[in-house]
């Protein structure tokens, strides 16, 4: 039997699975589909904004202590969060996808978004690091004619307006592929071919001006990304970096693949296409979770269960037209407002955020879901990631940081408990 069943294959579930498997637990991850990471820009946001404040956070680590009590960061605190991020950096480094932050550990990087806004990112993959907006070098935003969902002119204009000189240019898409209507992942795969990368690098060399760095859509290789980056920089003679695209996002897919491979090496299988839709309990213990199949429900027996299914955007919380919201696997108590009229404030961009996104599963300091009286709901259930209450990752720009910090901490809490039982 499994020691731990993780429900959800996003960043929090995978990090928790790793933290538990590393300490010898028998772990499996199940997921309805492949989600969240495929939509993410691939960086790690820690904390960009504090609720109710207009200005971006300058010292994100220190600012963790300024978050309201109950925020998931307040449980591990600065020390626990730093430790979890270090573990993430370590495993990504071993996977060949190095993540680094600003020179000072207590500051965010400022990187261009897909529309040319400045976004606060705590750790960036090597491919995006060169987009650092604290660097004064002017930017050549290079797009490809006919490539959907990447707009160099928009990006360059917005960056320039923000005080970062940038200009837009285009190359023909057949530099990369002769097939039509390719999406980002297919283009990234095409650029895994060294010959194509070389040809692109040579074309960039002709277009780039002295002193410029080149921002390209995030399609610079998928499985051979570091090599593709190297070839492009060498052939173009200029620093090259990626600007995230609309989904599916190659940096997110790389991250997902790297974590999945790391888990496989640690003996953890990740099964997609398995939607949790029921469970069996005995008193306050969950005996098994059931997933939907082509016929009978499949039982997943484990001694510990971690809920890492995501929030209302990720599918861990569902709702109906009246605004009634529920947690989809165990029906756990939620802090989410249960009437549609209470979901949103009158102002769309209210700096305090929207209540519906701050709602979620409340937990105790051991990451175990609790009811309104603070009592543990199920003795062997834990929760991590965006399903948790008291965080609004959209407003805070804290999505990946919360996922990593809570995933690792919950995984460790489960290891401790499992050790206690053994």
């Amino acid at each position, binding site marked *: 039997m499994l020691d731990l069943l993780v429900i959800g294959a996003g960043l929090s579930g995978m990090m928790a699975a790793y933290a538990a498997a590393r300490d010898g637990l028998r772990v499996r991850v199940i997921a*309805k*589909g*492949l*989600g*969240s990471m*495929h*939509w993410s820009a691939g960086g790690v946001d820690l904390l960009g904004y504090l609720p109710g404040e207009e200005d971006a956070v300058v010292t994100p680590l220190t600012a963790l202590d300024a978050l309201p009590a109950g925020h998931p960061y307040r449980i591990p605190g600065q020390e626990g969060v730093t430790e979890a991020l270090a573990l993430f950096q370590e495993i990504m480094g071993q996977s060949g996808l190095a993540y680094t932050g600003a020179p000072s550990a207590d500051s965010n990087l400022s990187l261009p978004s897909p529309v040319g806004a400045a976004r606060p990112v705590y750790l960036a993959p090597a491919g995006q690091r060169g987009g650092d907006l604290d660097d004064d070098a002017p930017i050549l935003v290079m797009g490809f004619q006919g490539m959907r969902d990447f707009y160099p002119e928009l990006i360059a204009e917005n960056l320039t307006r923000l005080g970062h000189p940038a200009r837009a240019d285009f190359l023909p898409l057949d530099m990369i592929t002769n*097939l*039509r*209507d390719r*999406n*980002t*992942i*297919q283009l990234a*795969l095409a650029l895994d071919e060294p010959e194509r990368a070389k040809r692109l690098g040579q074309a960039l060399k002709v277009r780039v001006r002295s002193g410029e760095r080149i921002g390209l859509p995030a399609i610079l290789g998928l499985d051979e990304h570091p090599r593709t980056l190297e070839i492009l920089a060498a052939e173009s003679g200029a620093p090259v970096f990626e600007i995230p695209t609309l*989904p*599916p996002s190659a940096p997110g*897919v790389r991250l997902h693949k790297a974590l999945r491979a790391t888990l496989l090496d640690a003996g953890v*299988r990740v*099964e*997609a*296409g*398995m*939607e949790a*839709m*029921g469970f069996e309990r005995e008193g306050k213990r969950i005996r098994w979770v059931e*997933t*939907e*199949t*082509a*016929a*009978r429900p*499949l039982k997943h*027996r484990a001694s510990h269960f971690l809920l890492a299914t995501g929030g209302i955007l990720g*599918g861990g919380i*569902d709702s109906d037209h009246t605004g009634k919201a*529920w947690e*989809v*696997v165990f*029906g756990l108590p939620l802090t989410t407002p249960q009437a549609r009229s209470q979901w949103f404030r009158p102002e769309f961009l209210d700096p305090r955020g929207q209540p519906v996104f701050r709602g979620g599963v409340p937990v105790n300091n051991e990451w175990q879901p609790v009811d309104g009286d603070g009592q543990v709901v199920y003795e062997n259930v834990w929760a991590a990631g965006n399903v948790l209450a008291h965080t609004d990752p959209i407003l805070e720009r804290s999505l990946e940081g919360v996922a990593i910090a809570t995933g690792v901490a919950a995984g460790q809490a489960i290891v401790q408990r499992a050790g206690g039982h053994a």
Partner: protein
Amino acid sequence: MHGISWQSVDHSLDECIKCNICTAYCPVASITDLFPGPKYSGPQAQRFRENGQPHSPDHAVDYCSGCRVCNEVCPSGVKIAELNARARAQIVADHGLPLRNRLLGRNELLGKAGSLAPGLANFALHNPISRIVAEKVMGIAKEAPLPTWSRDGTFVDWMKRTASQRLRSDKKVVYFHGCATMHYEPFVGKAAVAVMEHHGYEVIVPPQNCCGLPMLSNGEFKAAEGYHRNNVAHLGGYALAGYPVIGTSTSCTLTLKEEAPELLDMHGEAVTSLKMGTWDIFEWLMEIYDAGELRTDFQEMEMVLPYHAPCQARAHRVGKPALEILALIPGVDVRESHARCCGIAGTYGYKVEKYQIAMDVGQELFDFVLDQGEEVEYSACDSETCRWQMEHGTDLPSRHPIEILAAAYGLYDMETRELVEQAT
């Protein structure tokens, strides 16, 4: 608490958030322009197929191989492969079916016809001249890996011949052999029977038809419905009485469980009993294993075994039970393939215009198998056409996992594909 998977195929398309993960993982869209990808052909084009539109806007859907990788990776539970299958059926209803597709859908009939005179049939089908003719006249790719008819009778012939030696027991299971085991690979059925009897189960083989999947894949829903009705009539009673209906072809069992009821909108009591009572053989063995009843009297087998869980096995959504059981055999080093698809997708890769696509799709699997080292003698896969495709693409023989398990119990010879005579 029920999510989208419990909703109808049509309603599921409203859950699509256009994230394109399906397109990113679609093995066909990544290598050809002829198929724009699951999102476009599925939930997107479906908008234009609503309300009895007379003509489908999207004939590219014919290039969907039906592998169901899109369903597997979709984070929103959209039943993309089913949308595509229904769209193909609409095209067939509008425009009729080419003779070639009609023939490929009639697996059972072909099997029966060839089994009358297997030597002649094999010669007629497999000589290079007829393959060229078949390609020119019918559009059946001349290189594609067609099976050969069994020369020593069908699987059911063997069951009858050995009736007196078959185990009688209070514990009974029903075996669904499918057309391939019946006519081309009776040895897979023999291995399955041997393993089930080894666990003390009597194996019942009622009359049965083709599961109907080849017809469903080719958009011939009406004929598939006839087959499914017959199967329900023959097997539904057993399922209702609680006998597990066990199959060795993961695509046949998937059809009994889900494809036929869902695509054909058949939801009666007997249909649902059969759906709920059908098992892939390794899914069933896993259940026995979980109950602590799987026999472990294995012989040691030193082998490196590249194993590919075919798309249709993954589409059962029960994990990879064959992988887990094979890993219990001492000495067997199972290497798990993460390739998306072998390419052949039932009848898809036999069509001349799709043969090369199927081979290109399969390349990542062929490479995986060949990368496992010189000492590899066999690959393994649960689905027959996938095995034939893997053999075609790698030049290495491929075996059903049940053949390997039967060999590990000392019941079966993997090389000759014969049961080992038991000393009594």
